[in-house]
C-alpha cells in the first residue's frame, strides 16, 4: 500500500494562511491504514487546527469529511454539493488523491496535509517499510523475492557494494543489506545459480513519467494497446 505521514502542524497552518473556511478531506484507504489521513486522523487534525485558531484569536471554521477513496472520481462527487462553502480543501490523501481532488474541483485551492512516502508493507504496529519502487519491470523472480531496486540505495543489480556491513547497509545501518538478504534467500532455496548471469543495465523507459495504463479489456481505437 501507499504509506504517508502527516506534515508538521506548523507547515499546515502556514499553508492555510488567511483561509477562513477550511474543509479537511480524509481518505479511507491506504492513508487510513497507515494512520496518517483516515477518519480518526482527520478528526484529530481538524481539532488541532481549531484549537490553534482559537488560541491565536483567528476567525476560522474547520469542518471535516472522510471519503471512501480520494483517488477515484466517483467518490469525489459527493463533495460537489458543499465545496462552495469553503475557501480551501485540506486533503489528507496521498499525492494522487490530492491531485484528483484538485482536478475535480478546479476552482478551489487544494492543500496537501501529508507527505507521501512510499509503497510498502507493515513491519509491525505503526512501522512500515518501503518494498516497491513501481519500476514497471519486476525482477523479483531472479532475486529470491527481495527487490534490489527498492531495498539497495544504489539500485545494484549484480551484487553488493563494498559497503555491506555484517548484513547491514552502510547508508543506513538500521536497514538490511539487500544483497545479503538476496544471497541468503537464494542459498536457502538452493538457487544460487540465479546469481550467475550478469544482469544488464535496467531499462528505465517504463519509469518515464507520467505513466498511464489502460487495462486490455478497456482498450478501444482511441486508446491503442501499449506496446
Amino acid at each position: 500500500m501507499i504509506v504517508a505521514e502527516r506534515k508538521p502542524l506548523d507547515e499546515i497552518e502556514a499553508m492555510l494562511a488567511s483561509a477562513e473556511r477550511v474543509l479537511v478531506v480524509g481518505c479511507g484507504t491506504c492513508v487510513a491504514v497507515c494512520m496518517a489521513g483516515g477518519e480518526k486522523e482527520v478528526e484529530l487534525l481538524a481539532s488541532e487546527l481549531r484549537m490553534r485558531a482559537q488560541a491565536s484569536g483567528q476567525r476560522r471554521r474547520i469542518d471535516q469529511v472522510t471519503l471512501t477513496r480520494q483517488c477515484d472520481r466517483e467518490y469525489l462527487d459527493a463533495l460537489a454539493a458543499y465545496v462552495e462553502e469553503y475557501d480551501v480543501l485540506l486533503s489528507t490523501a496521498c499525492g494522487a488523491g490530492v491531485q484528483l481532488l484538485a482536478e475535480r474541483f478546479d476552482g478551489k485551492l487544494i492543500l496537501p496535509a501529508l507527505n507521501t512516502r512510499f509503497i510498502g508493507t507493515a513491519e509491525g504496529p505503526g512501522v512500515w517499510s518501503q518494498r516497491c519502487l513501481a519500476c514497471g519491470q519486476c525482477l523479483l523472480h531472479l532475486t529470491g523475492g527481495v527487490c534490489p531496486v527498492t531495498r539497495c540505495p544504489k539500485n545494484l543489480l549484480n551484487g553488493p557494494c563494498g559497503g555491506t556491513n555484517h548484513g547491514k547497509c552502510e547508508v543506513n545501518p538500521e536497514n538490511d543489506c539487500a544483497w545479503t538478504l538476496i544471497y541468503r534467500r537464494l542459498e536457502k532455496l538452493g538457487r544460487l545459480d540465479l546469481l550467475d548471469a550478469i544482469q544488464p543495465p535496467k531499462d528505465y523507459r517504463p519509469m518515464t513519467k507520467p505513466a498511464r495504463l489502460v487495462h486490455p479489456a478497456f482498450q478501444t481505437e482511441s486508446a491503442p494497446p501499449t506496446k
Partner: protein
Amino acid sequence: MVRLFRDVLQEKDFVVTAEIGPPKGTDVSRLVHHIELLRDRVDALNVTDNQSSVMRVSSLAACRLIVEHGGEPILQLTCRDRNRLALQSELLSAWVLGVRNVLCLTGDYVTVGDHPEAKPVFDLDSVQLLQTVQYLNQGRDLAGNNLEGATDFLAGSVVTPEADPLEPQLVKFAKKVRAGARFFQTQAVYDLDRFRRFMEQARRLLAQNQMGPVKILAGIVLLTSAKMARYMNEHVPGIMVPESLIEQLTGAEKGKALQVGIQIAGRLIRQIQQERLCDGVHIMAIGKEERVPDILAEAGLA
C-alpha cells in the same frame, strides 16, 4: 618515459600503484607536486572520483595533468554521479585525453558527502560499467551504435577481502572478471592471514571458471593515528585494523604515530611481496601523499 600500466602488469613481478586526490577548488599546485613526487616512484597513479561523495576537480582533469607531467594515470570512475550517457562520454573523453586505464566503481552514497541533498544516479552498477568499457573497446556503445574510433582501455575494479559476509562479494568479484576487469585494487588489508585466505578463495574461483589473467593489488591505507584506525574499524565497512596494530600506534611517542603508521604500511608491503600473497600493492595515503616515498623506503621498494 613511464611505461603503460598494461605492460607493467604483465611483466613486473610486483606492481605498485598509489592514489592521489584532486583538490576542492582550482589550485592544482599540490596535486601537481604529488604527481611529480610519485610519477617515477610508482607504476601508476589512481585519481579518485569525487571521493567520499565530496565535490572536487574531476578525476579526468587530474588524470590529464598526470599525462602532461609524464605519469601513467588510472581514472577512477564511479556510477554515483553520471548516467550511462555521461559515463560513456567521460570514457571516450578520457581516451581522447590520453588516459589508458580505468577503475570501475559503484561509488559511495551521496549522503556521506558534502552535498547530501543531491540526487544519486546509479544508473549502471560497477559490473555493467565494466561491460560498457568492453563495448567501447570493441568500437560500439552500450546501445550498440558504432563508434568513430574505439577505446582500448585496461579496466580494473575493486574487491573487499574483509567483507562480511564474503560469499556475495565473491559472486560480484567473479562477475567483474567476466565483465572484463583485468586488475583489482582491494579495500585496505591489515590482517595478512585473513588476506591470504581471501586470495586462496579468489584464486580458486578464477581457476574454476578458467578466467584469464587477473592481477590483484592489495590495498594499503596509511594509518596516521590510533584514533584514525579505531574510526575506520567503527565506520568503514570492510576495514578491520587488528588491535595489535592499534596498540603499536598508541604506544608511539608523542608526534610519532604517523611514523609508526608508515612503518606498519612498509612492513605489510614487504611481507606481501616476500610471501607473494598477490601481484602488488595499491597505496592509499589519504591526505599524506607526501609520505608515500617513505612508505616505499620502509618496504624496501625505493
